[in-house]
């Protein structure tokens, strides 16, 4: 039986390896590349859409931060609770990620990251300036 199977294996190999491979149509590569290019365009569009959606969101975010910082006594309150805020950064990061998630079908783009960092730095500089004003 083992002998038979070995022989069958050899015969199958001999016959099947000699069969011509079927070929797809001549335009096959061109069709695949067309699809690939349209995918690239689609992903560019998504990237654009990410920025596009962020344009109206950005001033709103600024207004919210600005508004919060204008509340009398808020800066002092924040400064007193810096440790707690520091611990909450993880949660803030999570919140920001979830906030921007619906506006994008891809992961956070570098531009989005820069914008978020700018807002964050603005917020920090405001805090620092208040701190300096209080101690000098």
């Amino acid at each position, binding site marked *: 039986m083992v002998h038979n199977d070995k022989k069958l294996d050899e015969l*199958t190999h001999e016959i099947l390896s000699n*069969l011509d*491979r079927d070929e797809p149509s001549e335009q096959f590569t061109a069709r695949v590349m067309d699809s690939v290019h349209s*995918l690239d365009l689609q992903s560019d569009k998504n990237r654009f859409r990410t920025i596009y959606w962020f344009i109206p969101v950005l001033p709103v975010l600024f207004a919210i931060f600005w508004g919060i910082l204008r509340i009398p006594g808020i800066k002092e309150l924040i400064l007193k609770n810096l440790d707690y805020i520091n611990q909450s950064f993880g949660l803030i990061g999570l919140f920001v990620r979830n906030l921007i998630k619906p506006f994008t079908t891809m992961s956070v783009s570098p531009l989005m990251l820069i914008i978020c960092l700018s807002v964050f730095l603005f917020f920090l500089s405001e805090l620092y300036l208040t701190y300096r004003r209080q101690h000098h």
Partner: protein
Amino acid sequence: MHDDRYYIKQILNGDSSGFAVLVDRHKKAMYSFALKMVKVPEDAEEIAHDAFVKAYQSLGKFRQESKFSTWLFRIVFNECVSRLRKKKVESISFQDPKFQFHEAEEPVNFLKELEANEQKEMVLNALEVLPYDERSLISLFYMQDCSVKEIAEITGYSESNIKVKLFRARKRLWEKLRYSMSEKTSIYGT
């Protein structure tokens, strides 16, 4: 001519032109394999097309632990299986007692008596009667020169399972060939 990894790196760096080289290099094998599985040329071409597009989209996830062609075969195999399941098309089970293989019988070289074209047609017809999983194994092992290990990666079956399935598939294939040959001789009286 560079190897597949060179073009993959190029594509991951943002230059998609190298993908055309990869498509040209592997399209015959992928189409041929898909055709053996789904049997309809239009469907096979669509499956091969979709598989290449999927591969392009997921290229970043390809860990390059296996050959690019093995990874592509796996995508084509999954596409074919899901399509065949959707269509609920299955080959007729080859259980007729008249096809039963006699273990004591020596395999004969009856196919060698036929002309090349006739031989090819008969083998392809016999392949078509096999269930799609056996057809896929025969195609990968004998026609695409994949090793048992590579077939395990492509299909998700264990290596020992593949060896058993290949043994059965081989037997069925030759039973069918033997039967076709006996039918032919009885019709033409040769």
